[in-house]
């Protein structure tokens, strides 16, 4: 009950307060305020307002992508420069080619009915490769003697393998034989 009386009293007091009104604004100030909305310029809220942040974001993205690309390009060019600066020696090149050829020959040998000639050629090729890599080789050693069966199989094998087995120079033979055999292996089902 007491609370109700208090609320009523507040209502009466609030009513008395609300009957008071703020004094009127001076005419000069009123005119100034009206002039603000009549002639004042607003800040643009079109796309131009968001142009600067979006441009900054786009520029950052472009910079990031450019740095990534330049970094990759620079690292690859550095690698190429190092390779060009330190070209492989003839021994390293021959050894690398011999190893590749050995792998190719092994694959070739897996498809043969009689694998003995292929393995003989592989072994010889590896020996030649290691020999070339370790020391200069003035002349190739004579080929090992072949029995009749091996000779018959060799007749049916590729001419390049036969040339290698018979003691042909390793580097030209490899250079000529590699693309031929790679294509042949790829064309096999």
């Amino acid at each position, binding site marked *: 009950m007491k609370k109700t009386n208090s609320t009523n*009293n*507040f209502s*009466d*007091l*609030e009513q*008395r*307060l*609300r*009957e*008071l*009104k*703020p*004094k*009127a*604004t*001076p005419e000069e*100030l*009123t005119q*100034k*305020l*009206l002039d*603000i*909305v*009549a002639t*004042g*310029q*607003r*800040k643009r*809220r079109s796309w131009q307002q968001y142009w600067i942040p979006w441009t900054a974001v786009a520029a950052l993205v472009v910079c990031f992508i450019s740095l990534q690309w330049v970094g990759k390009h620079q690292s690859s060019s550095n690698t190429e420069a190092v390779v060009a600066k330190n070209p492989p020696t003839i021994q390293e090149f021959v050894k690398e080619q011999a190893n590749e050829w050995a792998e190719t020959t092994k694959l070739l040998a897996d498809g043969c009915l009689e694998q003995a000639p292929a393995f003989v050629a592989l072994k010889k090729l590896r020996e030649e490769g290691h020999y070339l890599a370790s020391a200069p080789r003035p002349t190739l050693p004579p080929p090992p003697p072949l029995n009749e069966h091996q000779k018959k199989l060799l007749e049916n094998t590729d001419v390049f393998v036969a040339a290698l087995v018979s003691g042909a120079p390793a580097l030209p033979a490899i250079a000529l034989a590699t693309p031929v055999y790679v294509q042949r292996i790829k064309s096999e089902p």
Partner: protein
Amino acid sequence: MRNSEKNRWQEWILENQDRWLLYARQQTRSEADAQDVLQESIVSIWQESDPSESAELPHPGSVYAAIRFRALNLARGSDRRTRREQDYMDLNYVGGPESSPYAAEEQKLLLQAVQSLPSTLGEVLTLHVWGELTFQEIADVCKCSINTIAGRYRQALIRLQKELKGTFSL
């Protein structure tokens, strides 16, 4: 700017300028400061408003918040010693209508009682009674909780009631 929008804004200013100026007077120390603060607030509200034709007018509470912000900045930049010399609620600028049934002496006592309130209580009373803001809107302007605002308002009424006891039939 189209005329219809300009008219809307001008009507909005004419409707609310008296209560805005009252609050500006309460928050500043002089009439000149109050008018400057009000002008700056209207300019900022106008410039930041949406220029599209269909946009609604800003809420009056945003103007009170702008006035409060600028008045605080103005007070920080001035001499604090003289700040309290002229505690500028200045309810002399609040006058009753001619049709008011109350006598001039009673009005004067009421205004003096309101003027004697602490600034925090007077601010809430001004915004709620003459600014016609809700407690939530006042809380947004003053950056206080709504319970704080409601408590201040009640405290202001209690103080006024004690001050005016015997003067009116309260």
